[in-house]
């Protein structure tokens, strides 16, 4: 996992993203709800709830073409880096950024890798729960990455995004999606308040994301 250098999308990446966005629309009729923020080519970290592999496809389907070409999902290196095929799908087709959660060597430091993406002017899609949520809880506690990134690059906007229904469309362990309508609710940017502690900030970001769920009584 060496130094990344990113360009805007290759032909393969553009074709993949157009194809997947079309598929996402056919299956889920996905529609963005801008509730506190608006589409913008500003540099951003979109942070979202995570229940299925389809999550980032839905989220990027809601972005316009220009944003999509500079926005990369952060994915687990242990999983997506395992074989050459998986790595090809993750990096060459989906243009994800792979990080190792159990890193040992300094050059594998996830924060450094993500910062190098941000420093090239690109945006990230981050799932701060760290893993797909398979519990009955609507949202797991956040890992620290969001806080660390924002401390290091305070000018990057943090946009909370609630992805609705994906846990029903593609439950963990299932391969075929059930067609159900999905919406992605984009909330107002969250920023670290002056002097705010790591844990307080992460809890606040967590609560902000949870509050975007348009139908909380329906989640199970």
């Amino acid at each position, binding site marked *: 996992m060496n130094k990344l250098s990113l360009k805007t999308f290759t032909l393969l990446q553009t074709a993949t993203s157009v194809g997947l966005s079309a598929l996402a629309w056919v299956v889920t009729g996905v529609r963005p709800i801008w509730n506190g923020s608006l589409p913008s080519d500003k540099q951003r970290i979109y942070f979202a709830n995570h229940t299925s592999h389809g999550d980032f496809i839905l989220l990027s389907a809601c972005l316009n073409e220009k944003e999509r070409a500079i926005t990369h999902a952060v994915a687990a290196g242990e999983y997506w880096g395992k074989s050459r095929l998986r790595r090809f799908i993750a990096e060459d087709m989906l243009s994800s950024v792979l990080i190792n959660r159990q890193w040992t060597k300094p050059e594998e430091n996830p924060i450094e890798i993500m910062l190098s993406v941000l420093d090239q002017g690109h945006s990230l899609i981050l799932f701060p729960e760290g893993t797909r949520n398979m519990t009955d809880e609507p949202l797991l506690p956040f890992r620290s990455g969001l806080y660390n990134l924002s401390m290091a690059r305070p000018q990057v906007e943090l946009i909370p995004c609630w992805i609705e229904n994906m846990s029903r469309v593609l439950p963990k362990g299932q391969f075929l999606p*059930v067609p159900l309508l999905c919406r992605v609710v984009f909330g107002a940017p969250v920023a670290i308040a002056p002097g705010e502690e790591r844990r307080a900030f992460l809890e606040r970001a967590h609560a902000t994301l949870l509050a975007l769920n348009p139908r909380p009584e329906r989640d199970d």
Partner: protein
Amino acid sequence: MRHDISILIIGLLAVLTTASIVAAILSARAPKPLSSTLVNLTQRINAWWVMVALMTVAFFFGRYGLTILFALISFASLREFVTLTHTSRSDHWVLLGMFGIIIPFQYWLVWTAWYGLFVIFIPVYCFLLMPAITALHGDTERFLERIAAQQWAVMISVYCVSHVPALLTLDVPGFEGRNLLLIAFLVIVVQGSDVLQYIFGKLFGKHRFSPTVSPSKTWEGLIGGVVSASLLGALLSFVTPFTPLQAACVAFVVCSMGFLGGLVASAIKRDQGVKDWGHLIEGHGGMMDRTDSLIFAAPIFFHIVRYFWTV
């Protein structure tokens, strides 16, 4: 038949053009910013242009076009219905089967005109097998609610909707090769009744029909809409095997069913705490917001024609 369809299309274009002109005049005269009713009216009319265009294309392709169109309408309606109801992780395979097996199979039965299986496949076989599969998964939480919702979902959005293209399979003596016009008659009368109820309701609506179910349905809208749509049915009798009086009576029955369909759909939406079924059709809401009346009207229309007009 070409001639009849041309007359219907020209008539629809005239109505839509008039509607767009009226909406433009109303919008130009109204104080700015425009009221939400006027904005919504324009959106609705624009969506009608698209829907009429799609129907016209489907008619152009005849039996193929209409069977595929209504299969897609079933798909969109089923997706909205299932999204709204409670499902559990263990329902995954039943839900996949509803989209991947029940819709294609039901429309294949329509296509092959296998009437005997067409009428019982969902109400008998799916009715018994779907809860059996759910029980085999062993998840009993909210069991009855889940299987009831699944059953309702396929009955409403697949079984009832499939009765529209099934009209093509009826043998009406003296009407051979013109069955497409039965679909045109049903859709124009039922959707026309919805539009006329909306217009009469907006212009004269005072007395709510059922305040606990739907705030927008009024007695004035209901009576004005259904009576005028029945007259519309009589006017359209030239494209049907019916006499004008028969056409008016049939139109009256199907429009009344359509009204009840809208009422039931409103009750389900209210129970689930939403205003619209979805967001597929700008200004109207979801597919089910447009098809709820057709869903209740189609099977009744099918069986009226089958009982009284076929041999």
